[in-house]
């Protein structure tokens, strides 16, 4: 081992791994993130992959990326621009060159920069020059050939050999950032338990990359990013989909109910169903239904039968569920619907993030059909909002939609694990056996929630369904005045949830020039922008919404404290329109983006600065 120069300390670093969708970049990024988290860095990750599992090799459309941001301080976003780019081929460079910080380090697998690949990526002959990256710290590493050499005496087939070249790149990155290989080696050992030759191959290549980085001249500096100052406790890494699944299980346990989930696979929501299917040990029932309609209707059946029922989907699936969601509204049964949004309309951008389902969630049903709506804002808080959605559904006897999106679903962050004893109680509305004055639509006067009489309970036999109900008995009623009364009650019931949710908090300045307004997954970027502007001495606050319907009770007070309001969202202005409808007395400026990508902090700051100047 040659002697290392003293490493340079950095506050935070953004690394982007990119290659063909078959190059294993998601795994590489995940392994690096896990190591960083285990060493105590705060992290945020952003996987960005094409819709096709094996998109045409070597083309820009087939590039799969994984960005990780790790730091000594709290990290709130996966980062706008990368300090380090790993590009396994010219197409990966092409797709990512515009996301680099000036002077960034670029590690390319020079073996893949053949004339054919260069042309396929849309370059003429010298990608580095054509991208004007000559002044950047470009490391031309023969990753493929060195991987082959490291494994030449192992007798593996060429496919297996090439499959491990991502570990060479990972090894290089570990050396540059002074990371131990141990956690990743442990991963190989548990993952490939029954394939010792694969364990050995991966370890060899990982080490080959590590020592290569140490040996070559170009890398005479290395970096450290010290552990973050974070709250004491036990931590784990968690992504939004797993957190959502766990929040539902936690709510079922708190409520003393079994969890039932009827769902149909759809990107980017599938991970929730997959995680829940694993949790038979906690009694979770999953039904992979024949379609989304069966997903929600099996769940409605399970809710009628007395279980905590949920259905998970993305925008196109939610469209199929609309009629049945109305059935849950009129039968006033508890139900959680999770919408992991993606780019639309139609099949749109299945693997990309967007917030364009808001109007569909709020209004995409026939009739006056109010549902409660909450939105998670970080990967880890998907846990709390899934729990909260279930709590509201059970305590208020209503369907609740939880909105997340592709960015939260696949993104991950370290999470301080809560103890179940810290989670709020959930009191169900189950009608006890022996209640003699039971009527299906008799309500709690405060919340207007009706009682939940469970089939199997003697003496509480009753019929409910999708036809309009008589106000108390629940019998079918075509009475005109009764329909008005019931419509009012259903609306009022959801409105009254406002007494059961926290007020809106403002981050940063409590009054001032510009109030940033956001909802859902944009929190990290908005919060970073607000903090940076705070340091620049600008009077900017952030009001971020997790409760969408009903809105918190103090919105008017908050909005009234700022000169200007800037509503930022990854759609064409749906939340802004919703706010205009609810609070028409304010003027709303908008920042909107529909590129299948999150905001960058820079974009947000620019928009605020324009407002401050204007």
């Amino acid at each position, binding site marked *: 081992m040659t002697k290392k120069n003293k490493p340079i300390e950095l506050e935070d670093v953004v690394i982007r791994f990119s290659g063909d969708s078959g190059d294993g970049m998601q795994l590489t990024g995940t392994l690096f993130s896990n190591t960083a988290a285990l060493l105590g860095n705060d992290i945020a990750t952003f996987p960005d992959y094409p819709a096709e599992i094996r998109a045409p090799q070597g083309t820009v459309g087939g590039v799969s990326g994984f960005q990780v941001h790790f730091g000594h301080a709290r990290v709130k976003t996966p980062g706008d621009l990368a300090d380090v780019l790993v590009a396994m081929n010219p197409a990966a460079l092409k797709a990512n060159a515009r996301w680099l910080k000036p002077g960034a380090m670029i590690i390319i697998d020079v073996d893949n920069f053949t004339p054919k690949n260069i042309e396929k990526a849309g370059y003429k002959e010298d990608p580095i020059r054509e991208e004007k990256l000559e002044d950047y710290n470009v490391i031309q590493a023969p990753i493929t050939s060195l991987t082959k050499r490291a494994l030449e005496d192992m007798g593996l087939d060429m496919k297996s050999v090439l499959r491990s070249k991502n570990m060479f790149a990972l090894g290089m990155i570990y050396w540059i950032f002074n990371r131990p290989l141990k956690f990743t080696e442990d991963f190989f050992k548990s993952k490939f338990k029954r394939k010792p030759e694969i364990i050995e191959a991966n370890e060899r290549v990982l080490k080959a990359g590590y020592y290569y980085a140490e040996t070559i001249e170009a890398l005479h500096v290395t970096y450290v990013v010290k552990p973050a100052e974070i709250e004491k406790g036990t931590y784990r890494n968690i992504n939004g989909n797993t957190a959502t699944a766990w929040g539902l299980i936690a709510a079922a346990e708190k409520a003393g109910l079994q969890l039932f989930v009827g769902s149909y696979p759809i990107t980017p929501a599938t991970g929730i169903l997959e995680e829940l299917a694993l949790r038979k040990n906690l009694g979770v029932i999953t*039904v992979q239904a024949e379609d989304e309609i*069966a997903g929600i209707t*099996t769940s*409605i*059946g*399970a809710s009628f039968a007395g279980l905590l029922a949920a259905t998970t989907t993305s925008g196109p699936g939610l469209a199929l569920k609309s009629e049945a969601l109305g059935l849950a509204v009129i039968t006033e049964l508890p139900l959680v619907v999770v919408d992991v949004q993606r780019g639309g309309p139609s099949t749109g951008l299945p693997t990309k993030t967007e917030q364009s389902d808001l109007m569909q969630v709020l209004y995409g049903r026939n009739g006056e059909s109010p549902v409660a709506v909450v939105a998670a804002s970080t990967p880890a808080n998907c846990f709390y909002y899934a729990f909260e959605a279930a709590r509201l559904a059970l305590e208020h006897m209503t369907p609740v939609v939880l909105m997340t999106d592709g960015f939260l679903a696949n993104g991950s962050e370290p999470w301080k694990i809560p103890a179940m004893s810290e989670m709020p109680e959930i009191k169900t509305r189950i009608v006890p056996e022996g209640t003699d004055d039971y009527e299906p639509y008799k309500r709690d006067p405060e919340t207007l929630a009706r009682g939940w009489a469970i*089939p199997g309970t003697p003496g509480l*036999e009753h019929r409910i369904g999708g036809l309009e109900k008589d106000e108390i008995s629940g019998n079918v009623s075509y009475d005109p005045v009764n329909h008005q009364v019931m419509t009012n009650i259903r609306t009022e019931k959801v409105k009254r949830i406002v007494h059961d949710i926290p007020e809106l908090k403002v981050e940063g300045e409590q009054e001032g020039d510009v109030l940033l307004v956001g909802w859902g997954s944009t929190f990290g970027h908005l919060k970073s922008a607000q903090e940076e502007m705070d340091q620049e001495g600008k009077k900017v606050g952030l009001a971020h919404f997790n409760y969408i319907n009903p809105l918190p009770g103090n919105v008017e007070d908050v909005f009234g404290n700022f000169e200007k309001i800037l509503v930022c969202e990854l759609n064409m202005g749906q939340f802004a329109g919703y706010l205009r409808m609810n609070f028409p007395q304010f003027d709303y400026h908008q920042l909107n983006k529909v590129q299948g990508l999150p905001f960058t902090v820079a974009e947000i700051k620019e928009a605020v600065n324009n407002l401050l100047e204007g």
Partner: protein
Amino acid sequence: MSKETSQGVVYTPKDFKSDQEVRWCPGCGDHAILNSVQRAMSQLAIQKEKYAVISGIGCSSRFPYYMATYGFHGIHGRAAAISTGVKVANPELSVWTITGDGDSLAIGGNHLIHAVRRNVDINLLLFNNRIYGLTKGQYSPTSVKGQVTKTSPYGTVEPPFNPGELVIGAKGKFFARTLDGNIKLSTDIFIEAARHEGTSVVEILQNCVIYNNGAYADITDREHKEDRQIILRDGEPMIFGKERDKGLILDREHMKLKVVKIGENGISEKDILVHNSTENNPGLHMMLVNMRWPNYPVALGIIRNVAAPTYDMAVHAQIGKVKESSPINKMDDLLTSGNTWEVQ
């Protein structure tokens, strides 16, 4: 005959009647079916609170409102899916799915075949009036080719489904056929359907007096019914006819059923096929459900009744098995499992 439940209760059909006024058209076949279901339930020795009657949308799907049991009137086509959720959520319930030919074979066709494929333990009563009743007379997937309805003023040009063929094709283990007006046969079949563990599909040939009156007249009229229906009973030869002189044999050369006259061409009673609903091979059952007047009598009774594991039981058995061997028994265990680290 009424039987005592495990709790010592003896029911009469009246115990299953709700206080709601029955709103089907006078003379509609649905009235008789309601009657048969209430009779069957009173004879099943199941506590009343264990019944859940689930429907979709249609005239027939109003059924749950007229029952004094737990009931759920769903949305169009989704009765089988809602029922699946109810049954999997609580396998102790006796779940009855009420659906029409439009509800289960048009808009809900997908849910029907998948419930049957999974073998969810529900009793699915398919009210087949070969018409859309509730929407006032449009053709359905079982309307006969050429049928004139409001949406086929010149006759339909599409061939119909035969529900039994579809159900057996979807790996169905129980299929029976009955007539709305034959309360005795219907009651017996409903009882067997309830006893069968798995998806029991009962097709009820139901007359809609308003929009498709007489749809089954050719096989039900007093004059001819014995010659045009055959009621299949396990262990009994497939003999029918007013004179009980006709029977079914297998024409082995053409691999199809053939109607023969006992006493002619050397045929005696012992040549006639004997019904066995429990035969796993669906070949003969498929031929029986496909028999159509005038070439054959229409088969009634329990045509297929084969034991097989049910979906709801399999789901719960798997959960039980995983629970036994897992170190994770509660949420706190899961939260702290796997890769975690301490921050001091």
